[in-house]
């Protein structure tokens, strides 16, 4: 049996490893290398230019705008999404009182909420973005029409066309599409918290808010932390790219008011023929992603509760 072991291991690894190396590892390593060249992507010729691309970043206004928006996404999106989801999940699982003779239970209709809230999660972000592009339409969109109907016509605006509101309108869509996932995720984590903890807290006279901050949140901290990283990666990556690219017209919204780092990488590489510079922006994105994960893990460790 030992005889065939290595042949078996090699046989099983060779195909997946090749695919993975060719399509992921190799391009990834290449992109860091390209960031030190003047490669356009259009012709096979290029030469090394050292840190020129990195120096160029510093004076590139659109890069700073993209970075600023990506950082805003990174800080605000997880905060809003996770806060809302924690609140909903707490209500759904622990918020009900005096039902079914048990001390702790969810509010009425909690399973219905869990099913409905999850809807956006199974839809493609591209479809969601398209749907809201129509809803935000100033002329015929459902949002402005709804404002008219409830007598708030004064609030009507060109949502995605106005540089003041475009970024917020885009972020709202990302919150809309992810809250449900976290509600379900946190619900799963909450059901694994022993009921006696809640009962003991209730006997001590703790109210729901104290219970949440003293019991639920500390015991959920690991899940919140990984959720935070997960949401942060969405906010920096493919999800943000799709939402901004589909919803806002032109290159990242009116006057670049909604552009984000992944979109800027895409535009530089495939619109402007500056492949090397695009990979440099990508490296900046990588640095932000890794720094973010490191910060969350570091902050998380300090507040982690052992039980």
């Amino acid at each position, binding site marked *: 049996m030992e005889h065939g*072991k290595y042949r*078996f*291991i090699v046989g099983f690894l060779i195909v*997946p*490893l090749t*695919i993975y190396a060719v*399509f992921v*590892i190799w*391009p*990834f390593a*290449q*992109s860091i290398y390209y960031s030190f060249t003047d490669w356009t992507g259009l012709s096979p010729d290029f030469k090394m230019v050292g840190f020129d691309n990195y120096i160029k970043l510093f004076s590139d206004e659109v890069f700073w705008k993209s970075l600023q928006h990506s950082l805003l996404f990174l800080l605000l999106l997880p905060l809003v999404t996770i*806060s809302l989801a924690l*609140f*909903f999940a707490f*209500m*759904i699982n622990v918020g009900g*009182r005096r039902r079914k003779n048990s*001390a702790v239970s969810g*509010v009425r*209709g909690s399973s219905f*909420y869990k099913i*409905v*809230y999850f*809807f956006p999660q*199974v839809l*493609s*972000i*591209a*479809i969601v973005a*398209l*749907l809201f592009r*129509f*809803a935000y339409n100033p002329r*015929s969109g*459902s949002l402005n*029409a*709804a404002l008219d*109907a409830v007598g708030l016509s004064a609030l009507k605006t060109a949502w995605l066309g106005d540089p003041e509101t475009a970024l917020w309108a885009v972020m709202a869509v990302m919150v809309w599409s992810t809250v449900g*996932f976290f509600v*379900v*995720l946190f619900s799963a984590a909450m059901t694994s918290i022993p009921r006696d903890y809640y009962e003991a807290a209730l*006997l001590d006279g*703790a109210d*729901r808010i*104290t219970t949440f901050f003293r019991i639920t949140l500390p015991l959920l901290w690991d899940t919140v932390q990984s959720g935070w990283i*997960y949401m942060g*990666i969405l906010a*920096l*990556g*493919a999800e943000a*790219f799709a939402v901004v690219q589909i919803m806002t017209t032109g290159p990242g919204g009116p006057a670049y008011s909604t552009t984000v780092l992944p979109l800027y*990488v*895409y535009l530089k590489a495939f619109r402007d023929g500056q492949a090397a510079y*695009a*990979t440099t922006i*990508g490296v900046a*994105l*990588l640095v932000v*992603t890794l720094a973010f994960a490191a910060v969350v893990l570091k902050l998380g460790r300090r507040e982690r509760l052992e039980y």
Partner: protein
Amino acid sequence: MKTTGTLPEDRETETVSTVLTGDPLRGTADEESKKGTEGRTLNVFSHGMLVLWAVMVVMPLLWAVMTSFKDDKSIFTSPWSPPSTLNFDNWSRAWSQAHMSEYFFNTLLVVGGSLIGTMLLGSMVAYVLARFDFPGNRFFYFLFIGGMSFPIILALVPLFYVMSNTGLLNTRHGLILAYIAYSLPFTTFFLTSFFRSLPTSVAEAALIDGASHTRTFFQVMLPMAKPGLISVGIFNFLGQWNQYMLPTVLNTDPDQRVLTQGLVELAASQGYKGDWSGLFAGLVMAMLPVLAAYIIFQRQVVAGLTAGALK
């Protein structure tokens, strides 16, 4: 954000009500009346929020379904009114003339191929890494799962040119390979821990009985790993079905477009033609199958996605 705004007030009323009453586990009549006045603010607020969010989730979807049956004129003049007549021709127009049928077909082919490939290759890697001790085991493990932590868009720029040079650009099999490659990190990660959790005795018995490693894998281990395969399979299916960035970059040929891409292109072109109703029909067409599948297989989908995302 809205939740924190009202906390101090609610905290006060809640504390008063619970402190003043007796046993908080079994609500007494006294508590009921107290709660009636003071706990109500919190209750009304919380339930209000829950209902509001449910409405906010469902309304845009219902609006899209409603709009897909309307004619172009009423879409613009009265966005919220229900359709006066059900225009089913919007749907047939979207399906045939606006190429929705082709987008569906392309998506089915690409996702079908890549899902099979991802599951097969992913479980092979995971099995080897989880159950065999060999030099480099840890290295390969971290090589594979390392892919989860970096921004895909960074690799896509050179990948575009790699694929262009090898003739894989704008082909379905090229897209399938890319989907597989980018699904491997998570699939491997998830299934490695799953294979580790399975008992070793059954596989050992099979080997002693003379089964080869390959045979043991396919006939003993894979069937045992079914729950894990289903979870990660659903996760990958939805991820690949909903993929937008990879096809946008790697698949620019109009004939090869997948659903998400096709819809976005359609939105651009139909906008000129003014066929908004056809566009909404296409949008709803793409939405309904996954929503229906979710409602039917709700438990599995939720388990798959949540187990999938954060194990």
